[in-house]
């Protein structure tokens, strides 16, 4: 590094949600910003993650809704399904959003550098065949799917989440999802609604690790009811494509019993790992942890104070909104602001129908933290609005500190659960009590009344259930 003026105030590496939020916020704050991206702007989230899955989920749910319409006398024949149009529609939304990010880069005067970024020294980065210098650097290189030994992804018969987004024609009759986490369940739901017979296998004793045990149980019940077969304490040892089928050896990890089952498509969704290969971190004096993450403090600074890391590469949970928040914080700190990632709670969502959505501590986590815990539960089956939406599976569960009445966590299974997270998240950040929620008028008839009633239930004063 010389004493020559730097090319940029800030170089962001990676244009996923973490990176593009950082780049745009830094530009808003007056910095001269470049963003290096080797692939498409928008990262995993816009291109092959959050967005295309939600598009397919909507299509699947429209199919399911047409089936349930018979209950109120609206009888649909099975629709014809133009799979290439479905894929095209999904891709169109992705294109609109990534095009939007490019437009925002231009409008905010963020220079988009095309190519793989690799550190030369702590202020110098090679991007493709260019070398650029920057006062601050934000690493936002995200993550990639973890591989599973014995299951070689061919993106046709054996797919990862990226391959699974390309809906095949015809829809596979038998689908196996290896991994009962968020991604596994979203795809299971999509394929199940579009006509596949779906089985999910999960190594751990519980699906959706990290979510509240009661909520997970309720969620699993709802998914099973829809025809998804869920098996825990089970793993896939190998998968072999034979003709147009996949033969999978499945093992019960408790009994050691092995069976071979045949599927038309197999999804491997067993987690993601941080992506730092090719970055040449050592040249900047940086290292990764045992699990491959780049360590940061609350200001998102790495061991080198002018280099930041945000998003999936900076640690769990690997979620887009965490990446966004961290991107904003890093950009603000780089611009001299006193920002910190001080979020009380990072929400999680499974965007199925019903949705599973939560924020804050699970009941068990709250107990583990030493809180004396009270809970309040209100079932969706007692919600008038849920009845009119034909979606009465689920509940709202509130975890509250006894005595102080402080809200610690909110766990929702139900229609539009993710929309109710707004209130729950704000309540946690504002250090609200259950009474604050219970005393707030909630419009009738809305699903949000279930949040109100769960808060009332904490005090044994819910109206629409018998409080015990």
């Amino acid at each position: 590094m010389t004493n020559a003026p730097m090319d940029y105030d800030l170089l962001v590496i990676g244009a996923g949600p973490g990176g593009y939020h950082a780049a745009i916020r830094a530009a808003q704050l007056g910095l001269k910003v470049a963003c290096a991206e080797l692939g498409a702007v928008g990262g995993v989230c816009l291109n092959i993650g959050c967005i295309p899955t939600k598009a397919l989920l909507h299509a699947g749910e429209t199919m399911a809704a047409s089936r349930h319409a018979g209950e109120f006398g609206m009888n649909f024949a099975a629709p014809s399904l133009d799979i290439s149009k479905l894929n095209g529609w999904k891709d169109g939304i992705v294109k609109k959003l990534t095009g939007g990010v490019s437009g925002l880069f231009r409008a905010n005067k963020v220079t988009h550098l095309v190519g793989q970024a690799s550190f030369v020294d702590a202020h110098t980065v090679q991007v493709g065949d260019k070398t650029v210098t920057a006062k601050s650097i934000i690493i936002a290189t995200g993550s990639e799917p973890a591989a599973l030994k014995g299951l070689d992804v061919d993106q046709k018969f054996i797919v990862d989440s990226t391959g699974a987004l390309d809906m095949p024609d015809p829809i596979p009759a038998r689908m196996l999802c290896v991994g009962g986490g968020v991604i596994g369940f979203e795809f299971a739901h999509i394929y199940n609604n579009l006509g596949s017979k779906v089985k999910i296998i999960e190594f751990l004793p519980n699906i959706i690790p990290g979510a509240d045990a009661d909520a997970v149980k309720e969620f699993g019940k709802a998914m099973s009811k829809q025809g998804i077969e869920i098996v825990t304490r089970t793993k896939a040892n190998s998968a072999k494509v034979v003709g147009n089928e996949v033969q999978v050896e499945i093992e019960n990890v408790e009994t050691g019993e092995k069976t071979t089952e045949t599927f038309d498509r197999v999804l491997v969704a067993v987690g993601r790992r941080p992506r730092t290969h090719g970055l040449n971190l050592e040249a900047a004096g940086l290292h990764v942890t045992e699990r491959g993450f780049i360590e940061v403090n609350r200001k998102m600074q790495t061991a080198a104070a002018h280099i930041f890391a945000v998003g999936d590469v900076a640690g769990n949970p690997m979620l887009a909104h965490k990446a966004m928040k961290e991107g904003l914080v890093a950009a603000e700190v780089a611009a001299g602001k006193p920002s910190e990632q001080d979020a009380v709670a990072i929400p999680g969502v499974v965007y199925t129908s019903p949705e599973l959505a939560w924020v804050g501590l699970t009941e068990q986590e709250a107990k583990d933290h030493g809180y004396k815990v009270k809970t309040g539960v209100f079932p969706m089956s007692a919600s008038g609005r849920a009845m009119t939406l034909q979606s009465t599976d689920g509940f709202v569960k509130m975890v509250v500190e006894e005595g102080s009445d402080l809200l610690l966590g909110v766990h929702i299974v139900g229609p539009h659960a993710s929309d109710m997270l707004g209130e729950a998240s704000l309540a946690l950040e504002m250090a609200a009590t259950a009474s604050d929620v219970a005393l707030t008028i909630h419009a009738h008839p809305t699903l949000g009344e279930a949040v109100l009633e769960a808060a009332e239930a904490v005090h044994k004063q819910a109206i629409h259930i018998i409080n015990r």
Partner: protein
Amino acid sequence: RSAQAALPTASPAPAVPERESRVTGIRVLAVPAARQLARELGLDIALVSGSGPNGRVRPLDVHQHMERQRNGGAAARPVAPT
């Protein structure tokens, strides 16, 4: 994880600041705007006593804390400065 980090851990659960601001809890009970304001004023939010339920700190509490400090700190809480 680095010692000073108070970042999300393995699951989408809240970050848990290591320092305790009050006996019954492990969170700094302050609204987001108050936390930001305290940082802008270079103040440790944990030292500000809040007027809300459970000592919840709002921006006005932060301003009043600064006011008291300017007036000689007489009314400041007896907490050792960091």
